[in-house]
């Protein structure tokens, strides 16, 4: 009897986790370059089915949905979006990280940096943008037109990389990702670089709302099951003795 109670309890815990994930997706519905997280439903049921007596611990499966968000035009010279699979490469104090958040800025020293001030990696090191107008080509080539000149000088190429699929990326927050295996081989990215655009979050509100309802109801059902078990225990303890 108690094993069923624990099964129901793990259901509650799982619903709670699911709500955590849905909440985070919803909170980031407007975050540039954000990729929604998924948590699979069937794994819990499968676990219950395979279980024998004893506590059952849910084994929810997590994954990140790497589908592209839509592109939004901003018109800013240092806003870039990736069209297709791949990531920008960013140098952080904790090592190399990857991001699809292309709202870049210029640091005090003229370096191309992220909103957090991390340097954006170019094909040959960091990229310095000093002088006049910045142009970024489809292949990531950054050129700057110096004052007094009619042509633009190439100052670097924004590096974009991809990982062999399926790969597991660890989220670091601030829009940054890191492959779970640091040795994961990077492959050439096929993504096109689009200047003046940003990639919006790929969170689909309708899907997340359904998941929210699903998690709520699932919690309710599991809570009912716990209660039913408790009722049964109650009767066993208090009513049976009266017969």
């Amino acid at each position: 009897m108690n094993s069923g109670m624990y099964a129901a309890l793990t259901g509650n815990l799982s619903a709670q986790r699911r709500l955590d994930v849905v909440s985070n997706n919803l909170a980031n519905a407007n975050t540039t370059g954000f990729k929604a997280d998924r948590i699979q439903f069937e794994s819990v049921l499968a676990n219950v089915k395979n279980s024998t007596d004893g506590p059952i611990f849910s084994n929810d499966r997590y994954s990140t949905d790497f589908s592209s968000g839509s592109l939004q035009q901003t018109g800013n010279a240092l806003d870039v979006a990736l069209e297709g699979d791949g990531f920008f490469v960013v140098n952080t104090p904790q090592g190399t990280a990857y991001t699809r958040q292309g709202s870049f800025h210029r640091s005090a020293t003229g370096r191309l940096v992220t909103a957090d001030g991390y340097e954006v990696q170019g094909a040959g090191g960091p990229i310095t943008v000093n002088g006049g107008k910045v142009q970024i080509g489809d292949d990531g080539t950054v050129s700057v037109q110096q004052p007094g000149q009619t042509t633009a000088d190439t100052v670097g190429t924004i590096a974009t990389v991809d990982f062999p699929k399926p790969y597991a990326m660890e989220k670091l927050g601030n829009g940054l990702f890191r492959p779970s295996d640091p040795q994961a081989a990077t492959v050439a990215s096929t993504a096109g670089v689009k200047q003046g655009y940003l990639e919006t979050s790929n969170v689909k509100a309708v899907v997340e709302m359904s998941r929210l309802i699903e998690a709520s109801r699932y919690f309710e059902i599991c809570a009912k099951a716990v209660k039913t078990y408790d009722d049964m225990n109650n009767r066993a303890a208090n009513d049976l003795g009266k017969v």
Partner: protein
Amino acid sequence: MIRALWTAASGMQAQQLNIDVVANNLANSSTTGFKKSRADFQDLMYQTEKTTGAPATNTTTIPTGIQVGLGVRPGSVSKIFTTGTIVHTGNELDVAIEGDGFIQVQQSDGTTAYTRAGSLKKDGQGRVVTSDGQPIVPEIVIPSNATSINIGNDGTVSVQQAGQTAATTVGTIQLASFTNPAGLNAIGKNLFLPTDSSGNATTGTAGQNGLGTLDQGYIEQSNVSVMEEMVSMIVSQRAYEINSKAIQASDDMLQQAAALKR
């Protein structure tokens, strides 16, 4: 569940900032030379409950770990420097910049600020000033006997004086440009100050080195597209709403958990 509560709360806070930015854009939809802002957000840190790739047994590893995000925070609010609609006014001291560039303005503390609001005026001493009375840099003085003012595409200001047939050049409106205008610091009154992020100003003649040309008798309206802002507002409001629903769901679940104990 408490985690979800705070996560959703951070989402509501973020959308509130978004609405603040949209509201300011809408408030300035008719401001000459105004440049709209956009808020960018970033996901907060992740709580790793199970590390991907950690050994599950001697021979197998966990294919995907468990990472739960803790919400969202504002990353940056940047200005968007697309050109606003240029409208005809017929005023001889109204200038619009067609393309990149800013008019330089001398502030009372002596520093230079930058603006695209080209509705210039003449002050008591004949100096060309902004609507706030701040002289433009380099200073241009219009003689008191001038009957008409002509501003060329390259910024050359010439006047026709009473009793003379030829026009006299009295100065040139120079433009300034920045590597990254999005990094400029908006200080209100349509003025911008350079920052580390924008880089230093490069000054030059209008129409040269990538700078825009000047159009006399025109002003640049704000680049706020009311339709676009309305859509942002709806998107933001709905995002706020669905985050509140997540809070509601967390609360319902907490209540059910509490109801388990009789």
